[in-house]
Structures are given as structure tokens and as C-alpha cells.
């Protein structure tokens, strides 16, 4: 045939109608078929290498929630499928494809690394699977406006900039910045610097040690010689542990004020830091000693799993599952109805262990309290204590534009 067939307008319309009806039937059938089945939760996090410890603590948060609720989300059994991204974006994408394409998970929780989240973004936008970020803090992630992505944890800007304002109004005249030399380190330092200098403070020096630095002696000698009143630091995990310890060994504790971004002084670094952390101050969206019924219950539940206090990774993962649970309940358990489920996630309005949590309707960043915390020794334990609250901090203005 040489003549190409052209459908009439009527035929085209009816065809569209029929296929739409068919796909509606099919999706309805799927909803009913799976409505009673298990909910598959894909956990993509880092479980190996040095940051592997954070994946473990995040997973513990999910387990605590499921234990608390009989292993069910919206009255449906939960199957947790965990995959290790090895802190490597390429590995992460392979594992993500496995979770979404072959395991057909209903929701993805994770990851830890912002570089992983960035690598995931394009794929997740196409796949459309609901995705709650439980760790990655890169400020610009929520600028991507991925409809099925919600950040149930902090953004770097959100937590860093209130410390700049707070320090400038609390007798800190000048600081030396020390930030781990990767994206988050620079984001945090920039956010702090902006509000701190706007408040009249002066940044006298910026130091960016490479990732994997163990021995901070060169930087600490430098800080000691600079006669600065304060240091603002962002280092992660064991680096945070060692920096604070060596800060004391170099005789700086008590002479130079130690300020930091959340992971510098947090419950998972205290075992390494011991009393050297006492007196240090930091901001975070969570504090383990928050005096609220929600947090007390969470800490009690966590105590069955670990002898330490829960940290931000645990709380973020715990709250993320709570959000999934609530949203799934709101749509009558039909988590397969992605659009309705995502909408329900967006309407989240809960009081989590960290305090009230809602989502920004445009960027899907969690809106939450930022706490200014001081490290104290309480009943022989090193803990953070809230000394000031900045309520309902949202997403950064540049993301909203």
C-alpha cells in the first residue's frame, strides 16, 4: 500500500478514550491485586566503606518504626529491600534500577551522599517512584523540583545559615572556617559565612582539608596562632571525632569557641570525642535530649537497639517511614496510586521526634525547627542540649525562585 492510513478525528478520539479506559481498568485491577499484598520499601544507602556506619544507623531507624508498628505500613506487611550504593554514584544507579525495575519497590528511601542523590535524580524523575531522601543534604537538590521526591531530612543551607545569625548575635566577632573539601563542606561554609558576615562577624580564614584527613595538627597549629575567637567546622564521622579530640589536645579548648554544623558534634561522634566535645555548639534539625513526648518515646524505642543515643540519620529514616505510613493510610493503603500517594506525602503535617514537620509545596523540602545545641555531660553521658530554637525553617530562597 502506498497510501498511508490517516485516522478520522472521530476514530482517533474513540481510540484515545478506549485506551484510557483500558489503562484505568488495568491500574484499578493492579490496585486491587496488590492492595492486600506487601509494600516493598527499597532502602538505598551506604552500608560499606567509611560512611557505611551511617547506612546502618539509618536502617536502624526504619527498623525501630516497623517494630513499633508490627512490621506494617497502612496495615500491609512490609518487605525491606536494602541495597548498598558503596558511596559510588555508578553503583547506586545499578542498584536503583534493580530496586525499581526488577524488585518493583513502591517507595525508595535514601541515600546518604548528595552526589548519589544527584545521580539518582534523573532516573527517579522518569521512573516516578515515590522517593524520600533520608540523608543527602545538598541545598540545590530541592531546586530540581522532582514531583515524586521529598526531602524528609535537612538541607545544608537550612541548618547552616541560622548558626551564622546566631553566632553574630552571641559575641562571636571572628571565626576560622574549617570544612571538609567536598560539595557539602563548601555549601555549609558559604551558608554560614553569608549570614555571619551580614550580622557583622568577620571570617578571618577558610580551611578545606581533603576528605580522609586524620591528623589535623597542621590546621590546629594554624588556628591556635590566629588568635581567633571561634572556629566553625563541618567534618563528618571519624574526621569530626578526631578533629574535636585534637582541638583539645592542642590546647584550644576553652580558648577558642567551637562551633559547628550538625555532624561535627553529634551522638554518633561522641563515643570518639568523649569529654573533648563538651562546650561545643552546633545547629541541627534534631537533638537527642529534646524534651517532648514524641522524642522520649523514640529514644526509648531506640534504646532497645543500641546503647547510644539516636542520631540524625536514625531520626530522619524513622520519620521518613512514618511519613510513608501516614500517607499510605491517607490513600486507603493504595500506595500503588503514585499521584495520590505523593500528594498525601506533600500534605504531611506531623510532630516527629525532631518536632513539627511539613513539606514546602514547591520544592518538597521538609520545613522544620533548627536547634542550637550545646554539648554537655549529663549523668556520665555526653549529649547535646537545646539552648535555642529557630522555628519552622524552610528551603533556601534561591530554590524557591
Amino acid at each position, binding site marked *: 500500500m502506498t497510501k498511508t492510513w490517516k485516522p478520522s478525528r472521530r476514530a482517533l478520539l474513540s481510540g484515545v478514550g478506549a485506551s484510557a479506559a483500558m489503562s484505568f481498568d488495568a491500574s484499578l485491577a493492579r490496585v486491587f491485586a496488590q492492595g492486600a499484598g506487601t509494600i516493598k520499601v527499597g532502602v538505598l544507602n551506604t552500608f*560499606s*566503606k*567509611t560512611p*557505611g*556506619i551511617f547506612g546502618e544507623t539509618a536502617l536502624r531507624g526504619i527498623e525501630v518504626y516497623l517494630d513499633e508498628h508490627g512490621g506494617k505500613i497502612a496495615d500491609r506487611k512490609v518487605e525491606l529491600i536494602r541495597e548498598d550504593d558503596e558511596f559510588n554514584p555508578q553503583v547506586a544507579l545499578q542498584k536503583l534500577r534493580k530496586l525499581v525495575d526488577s524488585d518493583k519497590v513502591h517507595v525508595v528511601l535514601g541515600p546518604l551522599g548528595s552526589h548519589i542523590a544527584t545521580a539518582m535524580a534523573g532516573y527517579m524523575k522518569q521512573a516516578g517512584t515515590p522517593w524520600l531522601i533520608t540523608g543527602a543534604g545538598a541545598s540545590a537538590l530541592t531546586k530540581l523540583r522532582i514531583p515524586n521526591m521529598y526531602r524528609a531530612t535537612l538541607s545544608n543551607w537550612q541548618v547552616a545559615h541560622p548558626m551564622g545569625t546566631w553566632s553574630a548575635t552571641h559575641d562571636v566577632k571572628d571565626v576560622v572556617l574549617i570544612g571538609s573539601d567536598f560539595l557539602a563542606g563548601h555549601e555549609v561554609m558559604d551558608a554560614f559565612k553569608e549570614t555571619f558576615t551580614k550580622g557583622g562577624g568577620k571570617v578571618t580564614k577558610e*580551611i*578545606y*582539608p*581533603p576528605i*580522609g584527613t*586524620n*591528623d589535623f*595538627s*597542621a*590546621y590546629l*597549629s*594554624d588556628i*591556635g*596562632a590566629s588568635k581567633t575567637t571561634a572556629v566553625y567546622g563541618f567534618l563528618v*564521622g*571519624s574526621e569530626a*571525632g*578526631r578533629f574535636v*579530640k*585534637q582541638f*583539645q*589536645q*592542642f*590546647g584550644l579548648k576553652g580558648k577558642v569557641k567551637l562551633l559547628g554544623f550538625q555532624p561535627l558534634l553529634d551522638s554518633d561522634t561522641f563515643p*570518639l570525642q568523649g569529654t573533648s566535645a563538651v562546650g561545643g555548639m552546633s545547629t541541627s534539625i534534631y537533638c537527642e535530649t529534646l524534651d517532648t513526648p514524641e522524642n522520649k518515646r523514640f529514644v526509648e524505642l531506640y534504646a532497645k537497639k543500641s546503647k547510644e543515643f539516636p542520631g540524625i540519620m536514625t531520626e530522619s529514616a524513622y520519620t521518613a517511614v512514618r511519613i510513608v505510613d501516614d500517607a499510605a493510610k491517607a490513600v486507603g493503603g493504595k500506595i500503588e496510586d503514585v499521584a495520590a500517594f505523593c500528594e498525601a506525602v506533600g500534605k504531611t503535617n506531623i510532630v516527629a521526634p525532631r518536632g513539627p514537620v511539613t513539606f514546602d509545596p514547591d520544592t518538597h523540602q521538609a520545613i522544620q525547627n533548627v536547634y542550637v545545641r550545646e554539648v554537655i555531660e549529663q549523668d556520665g553521658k555526653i549529649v547535646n542540649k537545646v539552648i535555642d530554637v529557630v522555628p519552622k525553617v524552610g528551603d533556601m530562597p534561591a530554590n524557591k525562585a
Partner: protein
Amino acid sequence: MDLFISQALNGFVYGVLLFLLAAGLSLIFGLMGVVNLAHGSFFMLGAFVGLSIAKATGSFWWAVLLAPIPVALAAVVIEVVFMRQLYRRGRLDQVLLTFGFSFVFTDLVETVWGKDNFNIPEPAALENSIELLGGFYPSYRLALLGFGLVAALVLWIIIDRTRAGAMVRAAVDDSSTAMGIGLNVPLLLTTTFAAGAALAALAGVVAGPILGVYSGIDVEVLIPAFIVIVVGGMGSLKGAFVGSLVIGIADTLGKAYLPEMAMFLIYLAMILILLVRPAGLFGQVQTR
């Protein structure tokens, strides 16, 4: 205290730590011609064993005293049972064997102690800083510097002034001639291998309060140790000592004064030294 002096001290402390590791690595290479890729594992293993001893006894000193022993025994087993089988099969096979052992040790450590980051607490007496030249410096690091210098001196006396040391030097220079004049070279190999491992383990324990104890530190310390022996000259104790201090100071001053270039400053130092002295500062040009 003057900032430069303080930074130089930091460099020396790092240098003596490197020396404890590099000394064994260099001598083993000199004797066997084998780059021991499991040497970092001995460091890591010593640190973990020391960690457990320190926890059990509550004393840092017991950890320092006892941790090298099991590591040295493990080294004897590796040398006698495994390496010996491969001496006829060329050096590449031996290098691969030590590479394999580094994986085995990493797995062993992760199975026994997990993937967490640990800290060996320094002895209470050395916990804080002391006043020095009008400034403050951590007491533990000063003690470590002293200890490293004494260890270097003792090693030098053993290698340079004792009969056993003379035998080692002879075997390094020419092992077949040494065997020909009746030296028990296999025994020398085993002893040096074990002593090097013990030294690395010791380094692991004393570095514990500064660098920490975790799986993966083996590779992190091995790389600068390699640079040290390349700079100092393979097989030379003096070279290992001078190389350690050069690299330790270059690294520290780089971090302090040229932070953007700190990552490759030690490599730059290595390249410059190799351009001028291809066999390293104290290395002998191989004629074999």
C-alpha cells in the same frame, strides 16, 4: 610558640610514625626484593589488637608491649608457610601473595571488630597539652616524637653495630654471596619479615590515639610509606629515616602553607628527589 616551629614539630611527629612503618618495609624489600603490600595490614592488625588489649587491661602500655607479638607470629607463618613456596616463582607472584593477604586481613578485621571507627585512648598522663616555648603542644605527640627517635636510634645500632645487623646488611647487599659464606639467609628473611611486621604493629598502636583505628587505614598509611622508601632509597634504614622526615614535613608544611596543593606536594617532593637521585637519597644503584 612560633607557628613555624609548631608546624615543624607536627611534621616530625608524622615523620617518625612513617618511619616505624617504612623501616620494616624498606628492609624487607632490601632483603627479599619484594614489595610487601600486606605491610599496611600489619599496621592495622597491630592497631586493632592493641585496641582490644587496651580495652581489656585498661592500659595503653600493655597494648604497646603485647600487640606486636601476635602480629609478628602471623608474619612468621606467612613467611614460612606461604612466601617460601614462591621464592622460586619470581617476585611478581610474591607481591601478588602479599596483596592477597591484605584482603584477607581486611576481611578478618571487619569480621572481628566491624567497620566502625575506633580510638585507642592515650595514657592519662599524656592526655593534654604542655607549655612549650610560650605555646601549647599535645604531650602525647611530644612523647611519640621522643619514642620514634629512640626507636630509630635503637634500630640503627642493631643494623649498624651488631653482628645480626651485619648479617642483614650482607644479605641485602648480595644474598647469594651471603649464603655462600655460610649465612642462614632463610632464617634472616623470616626474622626480618617478623621484626618488620612487629614494628608496623607497634606503629599501629602508637598511631591509634592520633589516626584512629579502622578498616581501610592499612592502605592509607601504606601509600605514604611507599613514597618514603622510594625517596629514601629501597633497602636503606638511613634512607627510611630521612625519607620519613622529609615526607612528614613536606606534607605538614604543605597543608599549612599551600593548602590547595597539599594533596600532591609529597608526590612533587618524590618526583624532584627521584629526578636528582633516581635510586633515592640513600639507595644503591642496582647492578644486579
